[in-house]
């Protein structure tokens, strides 16, 4: 048996080594988990991003708890009803924080400086959240579900979507709600957060030039061009 000298891990060949170098190069640990921030990050508006994620975690935990016992459990159990209340208020707070976060980022024009994709993914996550919450209302298996589904079918059918996304099919909606849409929302959320970590927090108007490699605003246009 012959052995070869241990290669420098940083130069490790093969797909794994290349992928690792690419990942670490794109998002080194100090960017992923920074312990300093630009000094301009000093407003309460900044906490609504992390609060949105915190609320989402409570929604996922309470939702998983509800899923463990099945869709009918919360109608007959006091504990189940309480867990449903946790889920409801988690969702309400999630949207409250997310909408403030979204408006805050709009007022900051947070897409400046190679951050367009961060905005796009965040906005798509907002829309996916609406769809996920909507399917939650459809699978409550109560009067709400009956009324909302029979009303919503007309909108979905009118543009042909209802033929594949049947809101009257409770089993189909349950799977969308507990698996497919949370998966989509989870991926979008992680992607959004990683983009925020990679690109950092958008600087104030007029400070773009202090970011290395960033463009300078075009006078009179009110926009930053790349």
């Amino acid at each position, binding site marked *: 048996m012959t052995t070869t000298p241990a290669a420098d891990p940083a130069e490790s060949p093969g797909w794994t080594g290349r992928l690792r170098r690419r990942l670490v190069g794109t998002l080194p640990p100090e960017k992923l988990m920074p312990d300093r921030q630009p000094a301009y*990050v000093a407003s309460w508006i900044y906490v609504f991003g992390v609060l949105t994620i915190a609320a989402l975690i409570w929604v996922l935990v309470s939702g998983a708890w509800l899923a463990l016992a099945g869709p009918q459990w919360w109608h007959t159990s006091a504990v189940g009803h309480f867990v449903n209340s946790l889920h409801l208020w988690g969702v309400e707070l999630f949207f409250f924080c997310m909408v403030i976060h979204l408006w805050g980022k709009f007022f900051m024009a947070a897409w400046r400086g190679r951050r367009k994709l961060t905005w796009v993914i965040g906005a798509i996550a907002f829309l996916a959240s609406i769809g996920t919450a909507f399917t939650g209302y459809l699978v409550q298996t109560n009067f709400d579900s009956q009324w909302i589904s029979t009303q919503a079918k007309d909108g979905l059918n009118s543009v042909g979507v209802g033929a594949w996304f049947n809101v009257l*099919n409770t089993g189909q909606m349950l799977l969308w709600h507990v698996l497919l849409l949370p998966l989509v929302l989870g991926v979008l959320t992680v992607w959004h957060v990683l983009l925020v970590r990679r690109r950092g927090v958008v600087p104030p108007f007029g400070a773009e030039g202090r970011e*290395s490699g960033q463009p300078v605003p075009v006078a009179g246009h009110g926009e930053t061009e790349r």
Partner: protein
Amino acid sequence: MTTTLRKPVSPAAGWNGPTRSYDLVKEFVIALVVMGLLVVGLAVLLGSPDEGSVTLRQWAAADPNGFVATATSELAGDSTSAGYGPPYNTNGNGQQLGPVHLQNGAGVREPVDPANDFVLTPLRSIPGDPALTGALDRYTAASGDQQATWAGDYETALGNAPDNDPAKVASGDYGPVPELTGRLLTMALTGGLDAALTSQQGFYASDYTKPLLFLADGDYLAGKADDQHLSGDQWGMMNETGNFPGQAWLWLYTFWYQIPPFTHTANADAWIWALMALLSLVLVLVPFIPGLRGLPRYLGVHKLIWREYYRQHPR
């Protein structure tokens, strides 16, 4: 908060100006705890609504005349479901966006035949009833025109009867229709119709398309929703049973249903969906839309957000 001129540990996004200390993990843990306290506090204080589902049995007991009228309209072919069009049947044209028929284009993927699915098939599941079997045989042996005439005439007679009471209908030739709809009412009152409509798909049931369509064809469900301010013209989409908050984030979607021209068009759903799709696309593509992407600079809210920075760096 401490602000220094120290270079960031990482060139985080390449910021070359002053930085401050920041503890990502601590911030996240505090957010999680604060949000947890809020969620638990609101759940304990306010709870959540759970208005029980409406059964066909409840509907039949609470509004037997309305139930019989709806069953008759299914046989007559003029209920909402019977004339809906795709994806349930080909009896209606569906909605359209100008010349574009997206609803028709999707085709019939959830076939529903209201007369058979909601009335005749459930009645056939009742064993050992020669009178009912005779009524069913007579109805099914008749021509389509004859069936429509019987059901249509009976529907008209029900509409003219005091309180729409089947017992007070003027005499006429309605064929076996009064017998069929009366038996369906009896079946519903026992709870048998609830089971019959869901069991059409086999032992396991998870698709409630048919019972929900039948329920929605009547006025009982809509009346209960109206009482709770859940109707479309009551901004119902963002309301909830009781005094609980609903899907407030749908405010813009439900707004369009309150104003002309959408209040006056049969294609309102399609147009509002198209409009919301367009607005959603605009939201996603804000960074690429000239004018809109530059708007925040002129709105001035950023001066409040970065007031500390601008105080230290006057322009």
